[in-house]
C-alpha cells in the first residue's frame, strides 16, 4: 500500500486520482521511497509521512495537500467543512477552462482550490481555510474568493479567530476580471473581521504569489511562513524577463522576507500547531479565560 497522505488524498474511489491508482502497489508497506530534492537523501515514504512530509535530514518541506494540513493543524475530529459543494463555472467562456477544471478536480480530489471550515486548534474554536496546491496551483477564482469571504464573515459574526494557510499562483486568469475582483472582496471581509477586533493568523506556504499575496495572504495580524517558501507578488520568471537579469540566490524566499520585515516568523511545519496554539492562548479574551 502507498501510505496515504504522502501524495494526494482522494476522498473516495469515485473521485480518486487516476495517476495515483495507476501506480503499482509495492508488496511491503515501507518499500516506497522518495528522494529529497534538497539533500538528495532517500527517504521511506512511511517515515516521511510520520514526519509531516518534512525531510528529517535537511528540513526540506515537501508539498502537501489541504486535507493533510487540516489533519496536522486541527484537533482530531473537530474539523467541520463549510461550502464544500461550491463549484467553479466558465463564466467568461475562456478557452480550455472547462477541461482544466475537470483535470484539477481529478488531480486534487477537491472541488476547488480552497477548503474552509471550523475546527478546534488546541481546544480553541477557530475558522480555518487551507488552499489546495493540486487544484490549479491554488489559483483564486470566484469560488475561492467567495469561500474565503464567507469564512471571514462567519468568523466576524461569531467573533472567532481565523487561521489560514495559503498556497497560490495568484488570481485565476481563466475567470478574467472576475478573479481580480476577488482580491477586493476578500480584503473587504478581512478588514471587517479586523475592525471588529478579531485575530487573523496567516501561514504562507510554498508558493504564495500574485493576487493572493496582494490580498488576504498578507493581511493577517500575524503573518508567518514555512521555511524556504517562495513568496512574492510577481513570479521570479516574470521579474527576470522584465529586468533581464538573474535573480540573487534566496530572493523571494521566506528567509528573505523575514529579513526585509514582511514576516513575523518562519515556523517549521512540525512546530506549527504548537506555535498556533501559543498565539491563540496569547490572544485569549479575558471573558473566555
Amino acid at each position, binding site marked *: 500500500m502507498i501510505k496515504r497522505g504522502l501524495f494526494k488524498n482522494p476522498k473516495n474511489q469515485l473521485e480518486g486520482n487516476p495517476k495515483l491508482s495507476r501506480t503499482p502497489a509495492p508488496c511491503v508497506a515501507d518499500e516506497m521511497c522518495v528522494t529529497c530534492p534538497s539533500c538528495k537523501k532517500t527517504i521511506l515514504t512511511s517515515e516521511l509521512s510520520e514526519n509531516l512530509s518534512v525531510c528529517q535530514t535537511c528540513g526540506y518541506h515537501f508539498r502537501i495537500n489541504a486535507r493533510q494540513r487540516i489533519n496536522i493543524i486541527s484537533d482530531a475530529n473537530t474539523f467541520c467543512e463549510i461550502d464544500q459543494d461550491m463549484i467553479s463555472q466558465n*463564466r*467568461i467562456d*475562456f*478557452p*480550455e477552462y472547462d477541461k482544466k477544471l475537470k483535470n484539477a478536480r481529478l488531480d486534487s480530489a477537491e472541488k476547488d482550490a480552497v477548503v474552509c471550515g471550523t475546527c478546534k486548534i488546541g481546544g480553541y474554536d477557530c475558522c480555518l481555510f487551507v488552499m489546495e496546491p493540486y487544484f490549479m496551483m491554488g489559483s483564486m477564482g*470566484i469560488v475561492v*474568493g*467567495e469561500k474565503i*469571504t464567507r469564512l471571514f464573515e462567519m468568523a466576524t459574526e461569531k467573533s472567532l479567530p481565523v487561521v489560514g494557510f495559503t498556497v497560490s499562483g495568484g*488570481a485565476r*486568469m481563466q*475567470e*478574467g*476580471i*472576475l*478573479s*481580480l*475582483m*476577488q*482580491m*477586493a*472582496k476578500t*480584503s*473587504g471581509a*478581512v*478588514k*471587517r473581521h*479586523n*475592525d471588529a477586533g478579531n485575530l487573523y493568523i496567516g501561514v504562507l506556504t510554498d508558493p504564495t*504569489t*500574485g*493576487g493572493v*499575496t*496582494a*490580498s*488576504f*495572504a*498578507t*493581511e493577517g495580524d500575524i503573518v508567518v511562513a514555512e521555511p524556504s517558501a517562495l*513568496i*512574492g*507578488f*510577481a513570479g521570479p520568471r*516574470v*521579474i527576470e524577463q*522584465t*529586468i533581464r537579469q538573474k*535573480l*540573487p540566490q534566496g*530572493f*523571494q524566499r521566506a528567509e528573505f522576507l523575514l529579513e*526585509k*520585515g*514582511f514576516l513575523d516568523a518562519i515556523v517549521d511545519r512540525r512546530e506549527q500547531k504548537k506555535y498556533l496554539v501559543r498565539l491563540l492562548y496569547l490572544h485569549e479574551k479575558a471573558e473566555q479565560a
Partner: protein
Amino acid sequence: MNAYDKVRAARAKGRPTSIDYINQIFTKFTELHGDRRFSDDKAIIAGIAKLDDMSVTVIGIEKGHSTKEKVSRNFGSAHPEGYRKALRQMKLAEKFKRPVICFVDTAGAFCGIGAEERGQGQAIAENLMEMMALRVPVISIFIGEGGSGGALALSVADEVWMLENSVYSVISPEGCASILWKDSSKTKEASECLKLTAEDLYSFGVTERIFSEKAGFEPLCEEIKNQLIATFHRNNSLTTEELLDNRYRKFRKIGG
C-alpha cells in the same frame, strides 16, 4: 472596435494622461510628495485640488509624455512606495473629509527586485483593505490601461468609471497569450478571451459608467467634472455607514 483595438487605443501614444485630466477638471491642484517611509514614486501623483468649490484629494497613475518623462515615471508602473504614497493621501482625505478621485492608467504594478524587497504584494493588499473602509467617497476613473492588481490598488471605490477606450484586466493580453499558447504575439486572441473592454466590465457590474470619447478631450473632461459633482452631491444624503456598506456590497456581489 474589437477588444484588441481597444487595447491599442488605451495604450496609444499621445493619449491624455492623469496630469492632463487633473489640470482640465480641477483647479489649484497642489501636488504632495512622498510616502514618508522610503521615497517619492513618480509613477503616482497625488495632491489636493478644488472640484468647483469643493476640496478633493486627487491621485493618478502617471505615464508621462516625453521619453525622458516616461522613464522618470517608470512608464506608469508603480513601486510599493507609490501605493503607500496614495494611501497616505487617502488617509489625509479621510481626516479632512475630502472625497477621493483616482485616475488609473497602468500596465501593472512594477515587477522588479526593489518592488519585491519592499513588499509590492503587501502594499497593494493594504490599499485594498484600507480603501474598502475609507470613510469618505471614492471614485476611480480608468483613462487608459487597467493592469491587474496595480490598477485595483487604486480602485476599490464607490464607483468605477471607464472611458470607452480604456481596458481593465487580470493579466496583460501578452501575458495571457504566453501562458495559453506559449506565444506572446497572439495578443489579439488573448484580448478577446479576457473580456477586458469597458462594455464587458459594465456587463459584469465592475464599472458603473462609460464615458464616450468621441466629442474630444475638453467636452469629455467637462462631462467627468459634472458627473463627479453630481455623484458627490448624491453621496451627501448617505451616512458614512451606508456609503461603506454600499461599497462593500458592490464588490461582494460581482461574479456572485
